[in-house]
């Protein structure tokens, strides 16, 4: 993985971990990425095969990708 992708995977996992107590953790994480990540960051993570992503992070990214 590139350094940027490494960072994005780590950030996604961090977000998922810290939002796990939300009523809808997957939705909350998807919304967080929608609000704070720039389009290129989203495109990179959307294009990623999911390696290294936690299950919640992967679900959230899939959900956001589907709604994009």
């Amino acid at each position, binding site marked *: 993985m590139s350094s*940027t992708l490494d960072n994005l995977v780590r*950030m996604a996992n*961090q*977000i998922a971990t*810290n939002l796990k107590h939300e009523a809808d953790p997957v939705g909350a994480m998807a919304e967080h990425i929608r609000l*704070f*990540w*720039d*389009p290129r*960051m989203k495109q990179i993570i959307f294009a990623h095969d999911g390696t290294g992503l936690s299950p919640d992070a992967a679900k959230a990214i899939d959900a956001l990708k589907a709604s994009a």
Partner: protein
Amino acid sequence: MTYQPQTDFGTPASRSEDQVTLTIDGRETTVPAGTSVMRAASEQGTAIPKLCATDSLASFGSCRLCLVEIEGRRGTPASCTTPVEPGMVVHTQTPHLAKLRKGVMELYISDHPLDCLTCAANGDCELQDQAGNVGLRDVRYAADATHLGQTKDHSNPYFDFDPSKCIACSRCVRACDEVQGTLALTVQGRGFDSKISAGLSSDNFLGSECVSCGACVQACPTATLVEKSVVEIGTPERAVVTTCAYCGVGCTFRAEMRGEQLVRMVPWKDGKANRGHSCVKGRFAWGYAQHQDRILKPMIRAAASDPWREVEWEEAFTYAASELKRISAKFGKQALGGITSSRCTNEETFLVQKLIRAGFGNNNVDTCARVCHSPTGYGLKTTFGTSAGTQDFDSVEDSDVILVIGANPTDGHPVFASRMKRRLRAGAKLIVIDPRRTDLVRSPHIEAQHHLALRPGTNVAVLTAMAHTIVTEGLVDEAFVRERCDWNEFKDWADFVSLERNSPETLEPVTQVPAADLRAAARLYATGGNGAIYYGLGVTEHSQGSSTVMAIANLAMATGNIGHRGVGVNPLRGQNNVQGACDMGSFPHELPGYRHISDAATRREFEAEWGVALDPEPGLRIPNMLDAATDGVFKALYVQGEDILQSDPNTQHVAAGLAAMECVIVHDLFLNETANYAHIFLPGSTFLEKNGTFTNAERRIQMVRKVMSPLNGLEDWEVTQELARALGLDWNYTHPSEIMDEVARLTPSFSGVSFDKLDEEGSLQWPVNEAAPNGSPIMHIDGFVRGKGKFVVTDYVPTDEKTGPRFPLLLTTGRILSHYNVGAQTRRTDNVVWHEEDLLEIHPTDAENRGIKSGDWVKLASRAGETTLRATVTERVAPGVVYTTFHHPMTQANVVTTDYSDWATNCPEYKVTAVQISSSNGPTNWQEGYDQHARNARRIETAEAAE
């Protein structure tokens, strides 16, 4: 304004709401109960002669000059120590009083050098004034035994102490005690032998505990303590009130001038943030403004390896615009971005973000708050609904329990720290949560009830354990929570924190805080009366910075410590305009007023005003810009007033990002470290050279007023405007007030702000709108901005930055009193006498294990990089923890800090880096290489001599 000393009413104002009417010199006057006769007289325009009294200090009653006669009372009481009473009849001038005062003055002058014509305070000396006021014409006493001819103390770089001119009024000693709270000065000896002494008699001012705040100099009624600048230049002839450009306290000063030369900065007594006090930086460290290192001509170069070439402004703007257009055409508009600065004014910051959104055509704008208080914005907006602190600074006067977490206010926010210490000396209780034993933990007449010396990186665990104690021991203010907060969210939070895994006992191995101490601190905060929390970057600069801010908000809501004086959640902002830079829309996802860029209705307002379509997608944050640069897709950056190479984490990554760009425009006072990678340099103007506003940590908007012409010819807002015009934007601002008018039109929380209103009110705390036309000192009084306060579950997540055999110690970083941020300003002042270099603090046990002594060169290594600096062995840090500052570029502490960051905002995790320390015999290869690179990058082509 023409020069006039600030009005001195002699004694402090009374806060009583009861009124007392009395008669002074035949005139009836009404004042608050508790007012002194001296102040009552002064307020009605009668100046009673005085020497030992000044309105910043409690009355003292020693000089015997302010005597008055009161009908029905025997003797001649001192007016400074006599409170008014109903029906009192006072006479301030009678033949008897005149004779007494003349006698007192005669004694003073008999032991005072009569060198008024050559004295630095000539014309600005209270002793001289009072001698005239009492009509002293000759001195009958022989000068057999005097204090004349004593040795002057020139040791302090900013002021002189001449004991020959001292009248032993104790104003300096009392100022140090009461105002500053350092208690560095004392009166040594008794009677005729009385002498002002800084510490021990063997100490001089520089060697003493004096922190050079200037309170003693300001309080001195003679030339005993006088600024060196006054000695050198002379007394000022005019004064302009302006706002300090250092920390987020936002002290207001009178810039006292002769022509366009600054003579001295004197704290403004009417300043609502500082209430007439100052610190060594704001008071004295302004010499950088005229420093020879300042760059005054624009410069350009094709490559960062070339020498700079000086050009005229027009060529610089044309070249910059052509490069930005070229890069936009070649790589797309997303390849451009900019960084605003918390050191610049609101108006400048607003223009930079407008340039990027409206001119560059994207939202790739960020600010240095990214690397300090971005978690505050996220955390407080989520929980309370507003990205700002809840109180004004005056609020601390009503606090009963003060909890300081991750902040070192005596160094970082010294003027507010003095106000806090004053309240602590009056009896408020103190809890400090910090890995280091900061000065606040134990200082004269102050001792924290609890110092929770937690392991770095465990803030959330400590705060959750405090919440566990409060909830499980039944200390929640349930009435407040039911009325003001979402009850269901509270219940979820309460259930979570009540889990055994969140108890102080279970978490003790993680936090290293004794459970009993943590429980006691939690009980004190919850039950000790008005509880106020103050925090700094030790909270935000973590991988769970935003969670920590929310955990703090949870505690405040659970205990009802929100919505009135004495309580609240108070972020201590690092730089002068962190709050303002955030307010002005510097973040890539928000327009001014914290409104998300994806909100179509908000965007339409800006599009209508600016005449362009705005990108609805959030832009890149600083670390994301650097990642994109190293990926080859981000190519141009306009940086105003920031030095990201020195201040941002993982220096080598920052350098690689900058080196990968084709156009780096640095707009700054000096050739800073970032400029070593720049292609265009636009010289900046200091806060003394421009108009605008700063917004301090209490949301207080204050005027910055131009007191001298910009040495480079343009104020910073003009530079940004010219760059915008070169890019084709039709900007025609003629004054920063017009920029603020635009801010007010577009930003609901600023709708009532204008320069005229600020001139009228002195300052305004936002929101300023129809509902609060004069601002909002305290927020969330009747309800939270978001409606119901939101409790957020904050589960402790250990950082990914782990210690281990290779890197067994934890590094945390911070600041020192005498320096500011990257030191670009303060290193170019005499403040370097207190701190010539960054030092590594290491515990004696860790030092001994490595054979390290104080003063040794040591190598500081992490997974990110390594640097060298000298060690100081101290118990201020716990075993396993080391600490340093980041004020000096050759240390480059950020070479070792990592890319880890806050989960919500990407604020770097400066406060936790796993490191190893070992002996060293000098700079690392990287330091030597960087030094060579910096020397090379700063070359300026010399113009060829004309034929």
